[in-house]
């Protein structure tokens, strides 16, 4: 049976309008979309934060989107004010850029009563915009069956690790942190990364993963035996039975604070502001700090579990002896470093 042309065209137009309306109304539905960690690191966020949050707000669904990659930022920018996400977790380097570019909102302090429990230095690390949710450490993970234990960052250049080393591109904070460390170990600084390039060439052949989770998979499959790694990823892999040991190499593991931000244009402002407040609650932060996640608590009422010594400093003094980069300076070099890394090491 032939459909009359007018009916067909009207139907198509209606479909087009409905589909566009659907896109616009993503945030108007009862769903809070949160960009969170991938893999097992998402488990505590689901179990101890998102699920209780849903219970507290009847009818609301919290969707956790696993991603650590920059493509989420590209999607937010492409959406031009109609972000597909409401809340996002950003490491300090990306936080600095996001605040500068103005696509995350400064949540009023009145909406964040739990902020009073947070270490002040972490609040300033997040540029007084997002809430400092956790801190993580970049150290070195190695397979003790295959290589000897490294004790310092400079050990990565030892000949015995040649061909067994893995790292990520500077597109991730993990890879970028390694490049800044390589520069600093060799006379460079956060705003002078040039000494890193010849030094990285001295490593010989090494495997480059596009993301921290891809690097963890390479470890699992035995493609790499030693690599800079997040303490949380190392702890989770070790719990899964991987032959892997995490060390905080001299002069110290690199501390990176993670901030949770409300994205401007979120149609879920009220929920989006409450979610980060629950995130820094003593209860949730206590769960995050436990094995196997070992996310550093930013809430000063949360004690660091004694069993976490391998994966993070157990005292504030120990934390102060870790390495803190001047990310404000380093992020200005990030795009340049990413391009240079591509050119130097593309095969």
């Amino acid at each position, binding site marked *: 049976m032939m459909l009359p042309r007018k009916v067909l065209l009207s139907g198509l137009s209606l479909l087009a309008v409905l589909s566009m309306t659907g896109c616009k109304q993503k945030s108007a539905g009862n769903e809070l979309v949160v960009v969170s960690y991938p893999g097992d690191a998402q488990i505590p966020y689901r179990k101890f934060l998102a699920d209780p949050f849903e219970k507290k707000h009847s009818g609301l669904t919290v969707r956790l989107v696993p991603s650590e*990659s*920059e*493509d989420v*930022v*590209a999607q937010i*920018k*492409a959406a031009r004010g109609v972000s597909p996400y409401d809340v996002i977790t950003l490491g300090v380097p990306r936080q600095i*850029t996001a605040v500068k*570019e103005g696509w995350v909102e400064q949540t009023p302090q009145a909406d964040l009563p739990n902020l009073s429990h947070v270490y002040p230095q972490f609040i300033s690390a997040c540029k007084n915009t997002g809430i400092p949710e956790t801190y993580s450490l970049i150290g070195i993970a190695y397979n003790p069956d295959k290589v000897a234990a490294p004790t310092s960052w400079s050990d990565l250049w030892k000949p015995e690790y040649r061909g067994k080393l893995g790292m*990520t*591109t500077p*597109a991730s904070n993990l890879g970028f942190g390694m490049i800044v460390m390589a520069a600093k170990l060799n006379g460079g600084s956060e705003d002078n990364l040039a000494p890193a390039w010849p030094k990285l060439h001295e490593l010989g052949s090494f*495997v*480059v*993963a*596009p993301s921290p989770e*891809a690097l963890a998979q390479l470890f699992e*499959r*035995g*493609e790499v035996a030693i690599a800079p790694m997040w303490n949380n990823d190392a702890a989770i892999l070790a719990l899964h039975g991987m032959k892997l040991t995490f060390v905080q190499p001299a002069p110290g593991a690199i501390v990176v604070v993670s901030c949770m931000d409300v994205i401007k244009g979120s149609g879920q402002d009220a929920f989006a502001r409450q979610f980060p407040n629950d995130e820094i609650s003593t209860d949730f932060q206590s769960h995050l700090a436990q094995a196997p996640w070992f996310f550093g608590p930013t809430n000063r009422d949360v004690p660091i579990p004694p069993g976490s010594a391998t994966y993070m400093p157990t005292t504030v003094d120990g934390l102060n002896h870790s390495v803190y980069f001047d990310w404000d300076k380093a992020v200005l070099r990030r*795009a340049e470093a*990413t*391009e240079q890394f*591509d*050119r130097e*090491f*593309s*095969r």
Partner: protein
Amino acid sequence: MTPAARDRWSVGPAVIFTAAMIGLPVIFLFLLGFLKIDRGVFTGKFSPEGYAAIFTDPYYAQVFLRTLAIALLVTLLCLLLGYPIAFFFYRTQGRLKGAILLAVMAPLLTSTLVRTFGWMVLLGRDGAVNHALLATHIINSPIEFLFTLKGVLIGMTQVLLPYMVLPLMAALETVSPMLEEAAINLGASRWQVFWRILIPQTLPGMAGGVALVFILAFSEFPVPSLLGGATFKILPVYIYQTMTTLLDWSRGAALASILLLGSGLIVFLIQWIFKRLSPWTTAA
């Protein structure tokens, strides 16, 4: 209105739809390369910087040529592996024919991503391929397949092989067995029949397969990015990084336009070569 004119008009909606859905995004992509975009923010200014960066920096030419070489190599590998499969299909009768067709089509039922993850497991240092080669004493130490050109070629060839085999199967099925019989009766050897009868008769199918595989190989993203690793540079991977990591959308759009244009030109060239090789197909 004559029936022919009515037929022409009846394709109007399809033409408009295609033009809108394909033409407009391509035009927008091309123009995006001329807009000044600061980390994903449109500044409202025009600038040729996106294209200028590409044409003044030899690095992009290297990446383009490398992408082209890999795509041509994959196309050649698919042709060399695909023709015997299609030929075997042509010579087979009964249930086996159905089984071959199923075997060729089966990989298309699974996503490229899943198959590529499968290859990552197989081709790893501790993967099944290295284990088999070591166990049979063909090699003494594991071969590095992952994050090398070898791994990418293996993965891309496997993923794209059906796109070569299917047009070749279709072309061979149209060859009349009587032509072969006539050639043999006139004293031609099996090799001469294959080379002088079958190959020329299947050139149009070969042209289709080559064009299809080349286009897909030239723009392939998941296989090289997973099997080649983060530093394996070919144009689609580089475009993705430029767009998402550097947020340099105008340069990314310029690179994508060049990929599209280059792909179109090379496919045109492939078609032209095959037409020259088989003039009888256009003689009428």
